[in-house]
């Protein structure tokens, strides 16, 4: 069943702050095998002009995707998450995420489309720091594949 178009434009309340830890950044960088010193060495990060170690460009997805759970699990929207695949992902940064950031995410349903029985959901997550400054916007496209025989 196609998702309700009236949800387009709906925003969800900002999430509680997520505090970005330097060890979490290090763990993520190790998991992707990235040895860039800007992720682990404060002095190296400062030499590049950053106030502290920064996170790899895709690190913030863990935070925005968790926030998107508000949308995905909204019983009124009724998305069948067991059939969902990740279609597209995009980030636009005002500045890199860095250790010590306390980030909140505001998720908005940007578009709902139905194509060949698939439901396509575009979620925009606006990420702000504790001072209310914009850090990054994440756009996540989720595709709920049509159920067999539907």
């Amino acid at each position, binding site marked *: 069943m196609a998702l309700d178009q009236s949800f387009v434009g709906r925003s969800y309340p900002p999430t509680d702050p997520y505090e970005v830890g330097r060890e*979490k950044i290090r*763990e*993520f960088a*190790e*998991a*992707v*095998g*990235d040895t*860039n010193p*800007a*992720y682990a060495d404060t002095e190296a990060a400062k*030499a*590049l*002009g*950053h106030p502290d170690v*920064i996170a*790899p*460009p*895709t690190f913030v*997805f*863990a935070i925005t*995707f*968790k926030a998107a759970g508000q949308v995905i699990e909204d019983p009124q929207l009724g998305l069948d998450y067991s059939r969902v*695949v*990740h*279609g*597209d*992902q*995009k*980030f*636009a*940064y005002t*500045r*890199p995420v860095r250790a010590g950031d306390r980030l909140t995410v505001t998720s908005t349903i940007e578009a709902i489309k139905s194509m060949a029985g698939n439901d396509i959901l575009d979620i925009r997550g606006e990420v702000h720091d504790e001072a209310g400054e914009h850090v990054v916007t994440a*756009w996540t496209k989720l595709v709920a594949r049509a159920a067999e025989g539907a």
Partner: protein
Amino acid sequence: MTAKIAYEDVEVGTELPPRTFPVTRATLVQYAGASGDFNPIHWNEKFAREVGLPDVIAHGMFTMAEAIRVVTDWVGDPGAVVEYGVRFTKPVIVPNDDKGATIEVSAKVAAVLDDNRVRVDLLAKSGDQKVLGMSRAVVQLA
């Protein structure tokens, strides 16, 4: 923000050094822990096959994270990436052996923009399959 590549030294068609990244089952378990994405299609072969996949597949976000390393290694400062987007076109299939799979990434400058910015288009393949489409980054150069 200190990029080691100068805007003046770059033109459309400039190729970035390509890279090949290995990915094994152990890599996926480590990435699941670090990212918090524990979807069993990334570590449980039985589950993956039950939902119609040929085998365990890599997290799309893992592939996205590897691909941008070609750009961040080239530019020096990962904070120079101001935009990055991809389409997940095919999964990276990761067999349960000591070799796993590889992700081969190449990239070139596709456009020279204002304000010392350039657009880099990336190509990511695993085997002979293109695994990322419309893969683009905008970077701020020195």
